[in-house]
């Protein structure tokens, strides 16, 4: 097993970092650039910027935020929300992002996954799946920020996405998102067993035990977290130390090895 990636997920609306519960009920938190800088300094492995209402264009858009972040954040940045065309992807990558996360547009036209992977490479095509449990061992993919049902069964959709060229899956549990009750480790495990690309578990982190569970039981390759960080409940330092004590492979940051 390689090092588990610890990812800060920042949902953005206009010029603000926001936080939602079950992908609804948005709350303003602060300046998304300052938060990214702080998480970078604290030793985050990656940043995900998501724009749930997809205001990709216009002033204070996500593109400006990313462009600014590249001045002092030197870790991979993924951007999601409102990615519909190859030209959207090109603009996002040009502004300094490394990967795009696509959900709604891929559900509406799966061929977009192949087009992005062919033009820009699989490594930048992250398939974002919003999964809601619909029965025992059964999940349905939702879109439009967890509002609309796609009718697609998640595991089958993940397989199809990989066949089309997705290089990674950002797997958000709509049921757990913002709940702080822990990740849906069953979901992560089932999807991870079905495909051979890395899975980022997202939605539900309340404390480090949740992370340990979704890595040990769910076999997640990476873990995205939001409100535990935004509300200062945990720092990357706390998380790294605890996860290491539990035997998880976590990289050392330069701050750690220099001290």
């Amino acid at each position, binding site marked *: 097993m390689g090092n588990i990636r610890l990812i800060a997920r920042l949902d953005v609306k206009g010029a603000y970092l926001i936080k939602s519960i079950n992908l609804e009920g948005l709350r303003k938190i602060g300046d998304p650039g300052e938060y990214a800088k702080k998480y970078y300094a604290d030793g985050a492995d990656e940043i995900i910027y998501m724009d749930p209402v997809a205001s990709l264009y216009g002033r204070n858009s996500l593109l400006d935020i990313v462009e600014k972040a590249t001045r002092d954040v030197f870790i991979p940045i993924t951007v999601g929300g409102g990615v519909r065309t190859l030209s959207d992807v090109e603009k996002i990558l040009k502004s300094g992002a490394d990967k795009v996360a696509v959900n709604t547009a891929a559900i509406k036209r799966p061929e977009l996954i192949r087009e992005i992977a062919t033009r*820009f490479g699989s490594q930048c095509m992250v398939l974002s799946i919003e999964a809601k449990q619909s029965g025992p061992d059964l999940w349905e993919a939702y879109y439009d920020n967890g509002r609309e049902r796609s009718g697609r069964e998640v595991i089958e959709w993940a397989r199809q996405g990989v066949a089309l060229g997705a290089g990674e899956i950002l797997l958000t549990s709509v049921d757990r998102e913002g709940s702080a009750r822990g990740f849906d480790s069953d979901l992560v495990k089932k999807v991870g067993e079905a495909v051979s690309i890395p899975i980022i578990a997202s939605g539900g982190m309340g404390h480090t035990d949740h992370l340990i569970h979704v890595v040990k039981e769910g076999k997640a390759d990476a873990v995205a977290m939001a409100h535990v960080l935004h509300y200062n409940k945990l720092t990357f330092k706390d998380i790294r130390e605890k996860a290491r004590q539990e035997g998880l492979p976590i990289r050392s940051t330069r701050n750690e090895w220099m001290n």
Partner: protein
Amino acid sequence: MDELTVVDYGMGNLLSVKRALEFSCGRVVVTDSAKGIDDASKLILPGVGAFKEGMAELEKRGLIESIRRFCKENRPFLGICLGMQMMLDMSHEFGVSEGLGVIPGTVLPLPPCSLDGRPNKIPHIGWSSLSKSASVASWRGTILESISPFSSFYFVHSFYAVPVNSGHILAECGYNGHRFAAVIRSGNLYGCQFHPEKSGPDGLSLLKDFISL
């Protein structure tokens, strides 16, 4: 301040590379012309995407010969990710295609299974530390001079470089028991499979050492 020239051939995260170099105290010029490369004192070839397409984009802009010339004169050169793979003779990504050939070798797909038979997740995405390859006594005087065995770097790739001469491998990295070249070197020509511009302070320090070559 040292001036660095970054090759723009329509592929790769140019802005991130530029910003990381600027942060590491370099003055950066971006060029998409053969003349820009001829005039460069230090050259960086970034790259994200497919090998064949990368070479086609270089060719379309008429840059291949000038890059080869630059390397022949042993001026400081750094290929990043795809830029590193293109330094070799050829790649087996989507059929066989010819590379720049400034370091003898070939590019192969990462093995689909680990040594114990379990499927590897591909692409290989994540942070890994580097180890000295057996053929290298020390990293002193190289771009890895200030790197510790605990330093880690961000990798994202499905293919890996196999130089003919193992003496050209400066550092290795492991992926589920499989060892591959993480940094290749021949004189002043360097290539790294990972993204130093996305590898935090350790990556920036590597770039700084490249700038002061």
